[in-house]
């Protein structure tokens, strides 16, 4: 600790924009082992899963499970049906449930909130980082699953859900569209994980509780007593792709799913935002 001290007279400082904060959030995320492992896993794990299932008896209790040896287009649909039970909520929560609470864990809220950026900027930068990351994971997962399936099993026609056979040329856009319907609920789960991690300030709860809530919603939804209220569950939008694969496709559930997911997203983010704005930073 030698040398001189900076001159006084601070210039009127230009406040950094949210884009700068976003860039640094992305940098912090990229430095985490967890997020790198997640990206690699999103590419590698589907390859392993497809190869393993290719040697197993078809798992007939999951939709499209019975066709995994007869059509390469059925495999990604089977993986999607399996993944939405808990894998997709978990993937959505792994980063989103941690990105706020790890500042509590490291005691660094005070470090970043005593600079020149507002809590609002930090909130949006973190939220957008989590959303962007989760979309990237979903895209990688889908691309890896679809590519591996077509290479390993082949591009045979896809059995539809009303007895029709979908020719190979039409099957690929439908499979991609089916995976695309997962975007909305994944973003809903991202917001839920953000809310829970902001409120509990605990990364473990932030990651685990959306998965548990997802499984509870799945269970409640499978009971059938809810009727139309079932559509308000955040897990129901994961199933809406079924309608794309019938002879006369129906899209109303997809639309409802997007609206419901958006509702969860808005409510969760609004509560999380207000909570973070008002919160006293006492730790660290």
């Amino acid at each position, binding site marked *: 600790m030698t040398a001189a001290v900076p001159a006084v007279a601070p210039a009127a400082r230009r406040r950094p924009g949210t884009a700068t904060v976003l860039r640094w959030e992305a940098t912090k995320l990229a430095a985490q082992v967890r997020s790198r492992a997640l990206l690699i896993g999103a590419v590698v794990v589907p390859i392993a899963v497809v190869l393993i299932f290719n040697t197993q008896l078809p798992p007939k209790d999951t939709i499209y499970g*019975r066709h995994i040896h007869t059509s390469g287009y059925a495999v990604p649909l089977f993986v999607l049906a399996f993944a939405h039970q808990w894998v997709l909520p978990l993937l959505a929560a792994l980063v989103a449930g941690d990105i706020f609470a790890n500042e509590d864990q490291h005691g660094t809220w005070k470090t970043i909130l005593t600079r020149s950026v507002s809590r609002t900027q930090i909130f949006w930068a973190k939220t957008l980082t989590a959303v962007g990351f989760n979309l990237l994971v979903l895209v990688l997962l889908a691309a890896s699953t679809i590519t591996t399936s077509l290479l390993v099993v082949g591009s045979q026609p896809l059995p539809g859900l009303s007895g029709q056979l979908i020719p190979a040329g039409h099957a690929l856009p439908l499979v991609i569209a089916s995976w695309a319907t997962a975007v909305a609920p994944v973003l809903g789960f991202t917001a839920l994980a953000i809310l829970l991690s902001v409120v509990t300030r605990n990364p473990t709860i932030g990651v685990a509780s959306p998965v548990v809530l997802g499984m509870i919603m799945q269970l409640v939804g499978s009971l059938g007593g809810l009727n139309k209220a079932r559509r308000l569950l955040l897990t129901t939008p994961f199933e809406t792709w079924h309608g794309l694969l019938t002879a006369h496709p129906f899209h*109303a559930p997809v639309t409802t799913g997007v609206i419901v997911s958006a509702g969860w997203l808005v409510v969760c983010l609004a509560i999380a935002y207000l909570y973070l704005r008002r919160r006293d930073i006492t730790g660290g």
Partner: protein
Amino acid sequence: MTRTRTLALAIGLAVAASGALTGCGQPDVTKDRLERAIGPTFAGLYVHRADLLGEHGITVRSVGAVTACDRGGPKVPDVGPGPDWICMIHFTDDHGQPQDGKFEVQVRADATYIAGGPSKLIGQATLTDSHGQDVPNPVFEWDGAFDPDH
């Protein structure tokens, strides 16, 4: 702690909201929707089976499947998901004979179902196709979906 209170409040609201909405509106799984879905699906798959066997002239129209579904016998209302649905499918087989098949149907809350047919009418799980290869019998057991809105 304020935090715990907020969380408890949020969970309470969620439970109350879902509770209040329970039973509201029409059920997704109904006899009508299932019947409208299963008949054409069976017909399509039966045509597919005929194609595999090398039988020509079998079309959805010639199969002419008509379906009547019932859940869990006369005492159970014919709505809602469950493994206890039975659908009687009346159709014309590949020899031109009228047939009545009893299909066991497991209906899920997500408006999908698994249907399985009697092997004496539709054959075993595996068929030997016209090229002499063993292939799955499409009508032995199949996945289907129906529109929960119409």
